[in-house]
Structure formats: C-alpha cells, structure tokens
C-alpha cells in the first residue's frame, strides 16, 4: 500500500467516524438500544467506532506483514484520551490536602498579588519535550527544531507549575491559560559544538560529525492572574 492510498483510507475512516457521531447525536435512544451495557456518554462513541478501528489496523497488518503489540496513537479514539472535567479543572472546594480550605487559600494568594508582596515567581514550563524551571531573566537553551526567529517575543503556553515565596500552584498537568502568563524572547539561534560519532568495527570505520540546532530564550516575565482562581 502506498502513501496516498493509506491517506485516503485514513480519510474514509475519519468520515465514517464523523458520520457515526452524527447518527448518535441524532438518535441517542437508538444508540442506547444497540449498546445497553454502556452507561457513559463518552463510552458510547468509542464502542461505535471500535470495529472500524480494528478493520483499519488489520489491513495495515496484512500489508506490512508485521505484528503490532501496541496500537498507534492515531488509530486510537481521541476521546479515549479526554479526561473528565473533575480531573482537568481545579475544584478548590474539594481538596482534602488543604482541609477543603481551597477558596480561602486562593483568596490569600489574590490578596498577596494585589498588595504587591508576591515577590519573584518561578515556573516550570514544558518546552522542547522537556520540563524546565525558570524565573525572570533566566536563559534556557532549547535543542532541536524551534521555529521562532531572533527578536521574537513568545509566550510559553505549557506552564505546569507556578510558585512564589509562599505559594505554589500545580497544574494537572497544565495550568489554565488565563492563570499564568510566561513571556520570553528569542535571543540566539545557533548550532551546537561539533559532536563526533565515531564507530570502529572490523574493517569498518566511520567518522560522522554533527551539529544540532540550538535556540536560547530569555524569560521576560512570569505573571499570575489570581482572578481566574476564584471562578473555578
């Protein structure tokens, strides 16, 4: 199977999935009859598309002639990865570790922000496949492909944690976009030093020289907006 046929197959699969979803939305009662065992709404669409997924992967197996142990992520249903809202959204009223005093504590944080006693903040951002700890005026080096050019001001969106002297906010796994704002400037785009990959076997000798791309960022600001804490 060449690449274009593979792509068409994927497209057909997506269309079929959308169609099945549409049918579900039109007649949820009929769907319930088909699958009386499933109780959750999110499970329903999964079961509907399950046999489609299997056929697709079966065809691929036939062509490749290999046996796969794990399904590829794109073959899985995207809804499989969707977490329930209670796991993605912070509900401060039900945090047993804080003795269910979440709202009070968040209010304290808000007061601290408003009274300008927050001090220097630090954050852990996910960038370049790594978790990096940063504060203001820090420099971090990102390895590999990174499209922004020098002088670009970017906002680091995947913030996993923000902390100050007296508080820490953990994301599960990421913090809300409205809660934190981390800004950085690209100051340098270079290559690394020459890395040597030398292999020597019997009657085989290779010298490979390699330089990978590197980007240096300066962190300009880390800001916390506590107003979104009180809403949740």
């Amino acid at each position, binding site marked *: 199977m060449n690449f274009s046929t593979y792509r068409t197959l994927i497209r057909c699969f997506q269309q079929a999935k959308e169609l099945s979803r549409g049918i579900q939305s039109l007649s949820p009662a009929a769907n319930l009859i088909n699958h009386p065992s499933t109780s959750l709404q999110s499970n329903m669409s999964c079961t509907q598309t399950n046999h489609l997924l299997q056929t697709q992967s079966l065809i691929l197996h036939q062509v490749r002639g290999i046996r796969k142990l794990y399904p590829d992520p794109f073959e899985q249903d995207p809804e499989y990865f969707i977490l329930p809202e209670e796991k993605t959204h912070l509900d401060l009223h039900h945090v047993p570790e804080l003795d269910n005093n979440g709202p009070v504590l968040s209010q304290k944080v808000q007061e601290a922000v408003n009274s300008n006693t927050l001090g220097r903040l630090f954050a852990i951002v996910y960038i370049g496949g790594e978790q990096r700890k940063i504060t203001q005026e820090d420099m971090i080096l990102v390895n590999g492909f990174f499209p922004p*050019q020098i002088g670009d001001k970017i906002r680091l969106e995947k913030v996993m944690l923000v902390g100050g002297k007296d508080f820490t906010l953990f994301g599960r796994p990421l913090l809300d976009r409205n809660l934190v704002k981390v800004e950085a*400037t690209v100051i340098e*785009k270079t290559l690394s030093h020459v890395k040597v990959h030398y292999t020597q076997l019997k009657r085989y000798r290779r010298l490979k020289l390699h330089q990978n791309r590197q980007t240096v960022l300066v962190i300009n600001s880390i800001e916390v907006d506590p107003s979104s804490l009180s809403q949740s």
Partner: protein
Amino acid sequence: MLNVNMGSNVIPSTFLRNVMKNGIGRHVCQLQRVTLSLCKWSPGSAPAREFVEQDMVDFTRQNPGIVFYLKPRRHRSPVLKAEYLNGYTEEIDLTKLSREEINHWLGLLKGRSGQQIVRLRKDFHTDTPSIQGVWNPFLFKDTELSIKDVRDPSLSEYISPFKSATEKLLELKKKSGAS
C-alpha cells in the same frame, strides 16, 4: 570566557551567557556587518553572484540594522565574513555552496550572538537558583530526628509494604467496634 584550567584531553567548555543582557529590555541583533567577497568572473563564485542578484537586496531590506558589503576577490572562492557587536568575526568559505546554502549560512550568522561555538556545560543560566529555599533531606521531617541517636532501633526497623495478619484483624475489630 573559555575555562583555562582544563587538561589537554578535554573539549573546551563554557556556560551559557547573555551578551549585554540582550532581550531583557529590548532585543538588539548582534550581527552588525556582513562582507561578501566574490569574483565577478570565475565559475566558483557563480552561486554567490546569483545570491547578489536575487537575494541580497531582500536581505538588506528585511534587516536594516545589518550593513552588507560586497568586495571583489579575483580568482578565489567566495567568502562570507560576519562581524558582531562584541568584536567577534566569523568567516565562512562558500566553496561549492549553492545559492540556497549561502542563504542558510547567512541566516545562521544572523541568529548568532557573536560568541564562539563551544561546548556548553549547562543548558540554562539563572541568577536566582531557588525561590522557596533549597531542598534538604530534613525538610518537612519530624524535628525529633535531629536529637535521635543513630543506633536507635526504630530507625533500622523493617517497614513492610503489606499489612500483617494482626494488623488486618485489628482493623476488622476497629470497624466492627465502630459499627
């Protein structure tokens, strides 16, 4: 600066540095001057000439802060020379490079900050390593530990990950007692 106190067998290394605190307030492109020396006749300089005809004006328009010089160099391969704000110069021999490759190298020179490419020991730099205080093994531990003798048997006691039968029975007893 390069670390001087190193053996001869070691790749020289530095730490990540920010020249002139660039980017904290305003960002300044560190590349100031580019000189392209090329021959107007020899075939070795043909891609460089192509570059001058097609891409050079675009580059200068996009980067008004960078001065671009052209210099004749008869019967030799073309050379790209970049000069940075900190006085560092870098020369790239453009022998057998195509027009696109010349563009790529120019883009690389523009992105650099005028520091030599050396092995970096750390991929970050921070002036404030810790904000909430440095972690130590006794953080959030019971203060009783500090006056405890090292030979105390309670410290070397085996803690089983599983519940023993007596513990389970005690739990059952507790539950039944509560209900």
